[in-house]
Every structure is written in C-alpha cells, then in structure tokens.
C-alpha cells in the first residue's frame, strides 16, 4: 500500500528581522517507495527546509506530510522527530565527538523504545558498519576519523535502525572532489542494496543527475520542474532550470513557425531550426537554450541544421577537452570541443548545432539563476 513519502501543499514561512520569509511555498511531492529522489536548487531555494520538515526538525506553517502512509504532519497531528521512522545524514555529518564509532552507530538502537539485547545491538552495528566499509574502525574514537570516514559513519548511523526513509542533507558537499566522486558511486550502490526511500538534497547538478531516479528542481521555495534526470537535463521547462542544470548559453528570439516537427526561431544570429515544444505558439517571444557539449566547434559548416559564425574569445585546455568562450554577434556562447583540435583565441570558427539540441523556452526570467554555472 505504502507510497514512500507524500507531501501536499507544504508551506513554511517565518519572520526574520521583521521581514516575512517564505522558505517553502506550496510544495507537493509524491515520492515512491525505494525511490532516490533529489531536491536540487541553489542555496536558499527551500530544499533543505523541505527536508527538515520531513524530518520534523522544522514544523511547517501548513500542509501535510505522510511517511509510508502515516501522516506525520497534518492539521491535526505533528509527530515529533524522534517518533518518525527516519534516518538522516547531515551536511557536517554531526558525528558525536564524545562517543566512539560503535557508540555513535548504536545510539539510534538504544534511543528507541524497543529494548534490544546487547548481542543484537552489536550485530546490527557491525552490519551497518560493514555496509559502509567501516568495520575496522569500530573501536576508534569518532574524532580520529577523516572527513570521508565520518561521512560513512554518519550513513551507517542513519541506516542502522532500518528506517523507512533516508534523508540526506548535502552529504557530499564537504568532501574533496576525488572522494566526492567515489562516495557518490557508493551511496547509490548502498541505497539500491538496502532498498530504501531516499530524499537527497543538493545544489550540485552532477550529483543530482547521476544519483537520482527523480529530481525536483526548486527555486524561491517552489518546485519549478520535476522529472527524471534525462528530462531535467535535456528538456528543461524554463530558463532557470536550463541554466541551473548545466552551463547553458541563451539567445533570445521570436518563434516564426511552431509545429510538432520543430520550431523555427528568428534570432539576431539568424534563423534556427529547433526541437519541438508544444507550449510555444508562432509569434511568441522565446529563448534558445544551447548546451556547451551540443555545440560543435569547427572550421566549416557540417551537416547540422544550424551553423553560426563566431570568434574564439577564450580557449582553455582542461584535459578531457577544450572549454571555449565564443563571441557570436553580441552574444557569448559556451562550447566544449575535442582536446586534439584546439582553436586558439582569435580564431574564426563555425559553430554547428543539431536542431534536436536547440531547446526553445518561453521568454521569461533570463538570468534568474544568476548567470551560467
């Protein structure tokens, strides 16, 4: 029966220094059992507040939350945090420095109302530590662990009670780049092995895209787009999402024709053949969104539907490729080229884009995401 998590019309506002702040604005989510669901957005978008409402660490102003079919927040009840069937990993891990590794993991087992036998506690702590490859550290003091080990410990502590729901609050953001990549892969494996409904909060699009079964992109307290990673990346439904998920170049224009086969957009750089978008009518003011990796930098036009003349403004060799900033008319385009054929700054080039890679969005809040990332 049980859906994983149901959130309906969650609303949270508070007053800070006499100003009313709406942190979460009418958010509704339906998260299926065993799903890896990500709340993605810039800082202050309400993603962490939403997560803390699920955990019971914040009490929302209004709305309902159900965990596994049980209402934990509604008009009538507010179940306190310690009575919710959850496990949570914090951004700073929140490892208790006065306890050993074993004691940290055993705490959730001892805190609950059900009294467990000592042997059972030991067995379950060992199992949880084994899951995160930390068995050999069981007798260490928690303060003797590195950042990555604290992160694993924190995950073991969250899982040891075998809760219905796992809540992850930017757990990877304090790790260095290499470790983050490794932990990302492990986190996904562990989640699949355990099979647990997971809500993951992050501002990192790569984490979100690679880990999630579904993503809700949040901005200003609202969910602006919800979908699987491919949908979010390939068919963002507004400029904010396009810009936040991936470094995107935008060109404003007007839709000339719009039909199921595609859209033709007239821009200051000429006419573009674009992918279809049912929301766009002919004559509408639109914005073209172009991903850097879908722009092919070349010295001549190829078979692509669109080709633009441009000048290389900046050419940075980054190992696996070349990052270009290109000047095309009054616009700056970002492109990613092959490492072997690097065009130097000042070179005249042609940028080729397939129609399928030209995403047309309704014109709106250009730059709302605070520039390309």
């Amino acid at each position, binding site marked *: 029966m049980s859906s994983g998590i149901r959130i309906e019309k969650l609303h949270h506002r508070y007053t800070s220094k006499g100003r009313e702040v709406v942190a979460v604005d009418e958010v509704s989510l339906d998260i299926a059992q065993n799903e890896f669901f990500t709340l993605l957005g810039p800082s202050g978008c309400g993603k*962490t507040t939403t997560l*803390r409402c699920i*955990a*019971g*660490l914040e009490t929302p102003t209004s709305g309902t939350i159900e965990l596994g079919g049980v209402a934990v927040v509604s008009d009538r009840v507010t179940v*306190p*945090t*310690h*009575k*919710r069937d*959850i*496990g*949570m990993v*914090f*951004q*700073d891990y*929140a*490892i*208790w*420095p*006065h306890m050993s590794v074993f004691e940290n993991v055993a*705490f*959730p087992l001892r*805190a*609950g109302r059900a009294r467990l036998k000592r042997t059972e506690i030991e067995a379950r702590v060992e199992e949880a530590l084994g899951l995160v490859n930390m068995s050999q550290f069981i007798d260490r*003091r*928690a*303060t003797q*662990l*590195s*950042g990555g080990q*604290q992160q694993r410990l*924190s995950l073991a*502590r*969250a899982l040891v*009670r075998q809760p219905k729901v796992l*809540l992850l609050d930017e757990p990877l953001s*304090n790790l260095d780049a290499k470790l983050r990549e490794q932990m990302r892969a492990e986190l996904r494996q562990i989640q699949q092995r355990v099979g647990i409904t997971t809500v993951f909060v992050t501002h990192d699009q790569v984490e979100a895209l690679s880990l999630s079964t579904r993503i809700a992109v949040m901005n200003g307290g609202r969910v602006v787009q919800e979908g699987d990673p491919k949908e979010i990346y390939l068919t963002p439904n507004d400029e904010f999402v396009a810009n936040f998920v991936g470094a995107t170049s935008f060109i404003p224009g007007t839709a000339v024709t719009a039909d199921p086969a595609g859209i033709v957009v007239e821009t200051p750089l000429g006419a573009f053949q674009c992918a279809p978008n049912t929301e766009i009518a002919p004559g509408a003011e639109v914005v073209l969104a172009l991903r850097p990796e879908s722009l092919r930098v070349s010295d001549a036009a190829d078979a692509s539907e669109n080709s633009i003349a441009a000048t290389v403004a900046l050419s940075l060799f980054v190992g696996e490729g070349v990052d270009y900033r290109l000047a095309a008319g009054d616009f700056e385009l970002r492109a990613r080229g092959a490492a072997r054929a690097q065009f130097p700054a000042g070179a005249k080039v042609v940028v080729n884009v397939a129609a399928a890679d030209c995403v047309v969005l309704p014109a709106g809040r250009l730059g709302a995401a605070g520039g390309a990332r």
Partner: protein
Amino acid sequence: MTRVVDNAVRYRSAPGPSPAAKPIRRRRRLRIGAPGIALLVLLVYLVIGPIAMLLLSGFENTTLGVVIRPPFPWTLENFVKMLTTQQTYSVLLATAVFAFASLLISFVISFALAWLVERTDIPLPGFIYVLTVAPTGMPGMISAIAWGLLANPVNGVLNLMLRPLFHAGASTGPLNVYSMPGMIAVQSIALVPLSFLLITASLRSMNPSLEDAARASGAGPLRVLARVSIPLLTPVLVGAIVYQFVTVIEGVDIPLILGLPGHVTVFSTEVYTITHPAFGLPDYGLSSAYGILLLVIALAPLILYNRVLARAQDYATVTGKAFRPRRARLGAWRWVAFAAVMVYVAITFVLPLIVLLYGSLEPYIGAFSLSSLERLTLSGWTNAFHSHLFWSSLSNTLVIGLVSSVLVMALSLGLSWIIVRTKSRIAWLADILAFLPHAMPGIVIGLAVLLIYLLIPGPIYGSIWIVVIAMTTQYLSLGTRLTTGGIAQIQVGLEEAGRTSGANAARVWLRVLLPLLRPVLLNGFLLVFLTAIKNLTLPLMLQSSTNTVMATEIWNSWNDGKVTQTAVLSVILTAVTVVASILLRRFGDAGDDRL
C-alpha cells in the same frame, strides 16, 4: 560579552583543530627581541616574586620580620604550627563545604536557567537573559551587605517582617544569614550570572546538528539532553566550575561580612585575621604557610582543568550555524517556569537593590512599613558628599581601576604575543607567567605583595600603587586569556606582510596589530576595570590610612555599624559598576562583531 566570558575561562584559547582535521602546518616563528626579554623580566618580578616571597617567609622564623639576606632563620615551625592546630582542619572543612555547596547550587541554577533560555519556548527569553546577567554589576561584597541587612538574625528586614508570622515572641530569626547556609546561599547567587553566561555561550556555539542528529535517531528531548547536550558541554562546565572554585576560595568579601559575625572562618578570612589581628603583632610566617597551602589547593584543580581542556579540543563543535536549534515545548509549564524565574530574579536581585536604597534613605534599619516612610532622610547622602574621605576613596578607586587595567592589558598584549608568535626556548616561561596568576588566590597575592613592600623601603607601601601592583599581578591571566585569543585570530601573514612592505617592528605594531586588536583591548580593559573596582580582598589586605578605596570604605563603615553610610556607599559603587558593565556589554559586543 558572551565571547569575553567564554574566553575568560579558556586559558590560552588558541583555536583548536576542528574534528575534520586539516593538515597541520608548522607555525611560523618570529623573534622575541630585547623588548620581549625586558617584558619577561618585569613579569617574573610581578608573578614569581610574590610566590618566592611567600615561600621565603613561610619557611622562616618571622618574629623579627622577613629576612632576605644570610643568615636565613630557616624553620619548619610555621608548617608544624599550621598542621597541628585544630583550627586549620576546621577551616579546611568549612572552606570545602562552602566552596562545593555554593558551586553545586549555583551550577544547577545556572544550567536550568541557561537551558530554559536557550532550549525551550519560555516566554521572553531575552528579558530573562538580561535580568540574570544584570547582577554581574553588583559586587559580591555589596550583595553580602544587602543580605546582612535583609536577613541578619536580630533586626534583618525580612526577619522583622517574618518573625510575627513564624517565630512570634522570639528575639532572633527565623532567618540567619550569618551562618554557613547563609554564606552558601549568597555565594551561590553571586556565582550564577557568570556561570550562566558561560553555559549559554557554549549552548549557543554548539553545533545544532549534533542535537538534530540525536533527535533524528529516535531520541526524545530528555535523552538528547542527557546523552548529547550535557556530555558535549562537559569541558566547558568543568572549566567554569574550576574557574569559579578559585573565585570562591580567594575572596574575603562574603566570608568576612557574613561568616565572621557567625564565627564561620574559611581560608581567606583566616589569612586576613592572622595578618590583621585585633590585638598583638601579625604572624607573617604562619599566614604565609596558610597562603602556600591555599595556593596548592587552587592549583590542583587548575591542572586538572587544563587536562580537560587538552581533551576538549576534540570537542570543538563550533561551526557556522545554519539553523537555530530546536526548542523544547513546555506547554502549560511555560508560564510556571517563567513565574519561577521571575521569583528567583526578584529575590536575588531586586530585593537586595531595594534594601540598599531603603537603607541609604533611613537613619536606621527596620522593617518595611508605612511608618518607616516618615523617617526617610537624605542625610546619609549629603553626609557622604560632604565627606573628604568619600571623594578620596572614590578617586582612589577610579585611579586604581584605570591604571591597573591599562597596565594589565599592555603587559598581557606583550606576553600573549610572545606565547602565540614566538617559540623560543624561553616561551615556556611566558606560558607559566600567563597561567600562574590564575592559580594565585587574591588573598595570597595580597599577602605576598604586602610582605614584599614591607621589606622594600620607599613610597610604595601604604600607597595606592601597592594595590595597583597587586591587581596587575592578579588580573594578568584574565588579560592574557583575551589577548592570546585575539592575537591567535590574526594570521601571522598580516604581520609579515607589514614587514615585507618595509615597516619596522614598532610600525607593524602600531599600524597592523594594535588597530586589529583594538576591540579585544577595549573589551579587556573594561573587564579588568570592572573586576578591579569590585575587588575588596586586595585593598583590604594592603589597606593604610591613605589608600582607602570605595570597597574598603564600605567595609570599614559596615564594620563600624554605620548602616546608612554603608548603604549610601554601596549604592554609589553599584552605580559605578553597573555603568561599567553596560559599557562592557556595549563595546564588548561591538568588538566581538568586528573580529
């Protein structure tokens, strides 16, 4: 202010590594230089000098005074006398009971108040905070006097009012503040504000996600408190208790005012009465032996405390706070708790203030009543303002406070710079110099400084400068705790950048260090000033006819039974300290923000 006091118990508060330890970089070292050496020599005189003096006179036969050139009249007689007198053991027991009971009571009250203010939804937490901290402006001596007026067994105001109800017919009681329980109660109340500040500061700096994590692990509010919050606070609590322990055993104020009338003697009053006997000559040898014993008693817990502190670095839980900690819901108990706190504040703070004001306007003390209103007179106030002694004691108080605090901060600054920035072979000496005064109870410093200037001829003995010297020694630890923290926060690179820009050492100090440390210095100056003008112990030990300060003047008139004059002077001194502590809070807070 919270930071000030936080630092005030944190000896050498160099920032510890966070749990996710970063790679340790070796600290860059600077040279100590000739001015540094000169500073160390001066500090050795100020800090080691008194201890050496104490040891010397403790192991000498001092019937002919202390001898500082051969042949030394070495003897163990003083210690034999001390250890074979029954009196010593009863004093030891009384001191232990007095100290432990008041520490226990004050910390239970402080923790309860801090938890209510920081972790529950009690109404008006900011208001409670201010009211709890406000009594820091009232010197312990004055609150002892106020309680003497309120609850002395014969004509205490409360007794006169309660006696018809509970004790009809008796001529004393029902309350008696001139007793061990009375001393403990007043001392406990006096310890609460600072303990409360320390605990709230550490509750605020505690990473709230540690508590959140416990809650998300299924622990209820009480379990979170018992298994996570309190264990994490342990280093701070132990540090604060040890700090307050020295405060309790070093001062003469409460034991002198409340203990002596009830024949309760503790260490500090024992040393005072031996050096200032009513009849006969003072026995400096015996009092030095007592001083040495007291020094050992103060030192032992401090060493324990520094051990705890070494471990406490593991506990570094201060992080950028993302979320306000969650507050427990008290439900209907909110208002019960609020009312209880208000009653506490009324009894411990408002009542003493009222009785002092009332006493200052009455020719003699009696129960509050309508008829007493008819006796109201300003004569106590006009007498004070026409008294030469009043004006000279007020100016002595201010001069001693100002000069001591400037000296303390200047010396502390230099000493901390040596501790933080140089790691030369004599840096251990700097560490010891910064640490020792903290372990030297005021009464011991007073005794030792008295002995030194009895020996050294010249104008120091009996002047206000002998008090300034003693206070400089006593508050050196307080000062260095602030300046060490301040300098540790300034990257050494900022000084090096000054040097590489062509500035000499003096110019780097003037243009880089001092401007950056200004808030810390101002803060420390005010804190030392405030503490110094409240100090009764040192001026009393070093008293002469020409160096009377407000504190000693209040004690003298109290001792002479001049109640109205005592009350007038107490109100005036309290006003001065309240103004100083308001300034401290204002500038102290501003200073903290800047760093």
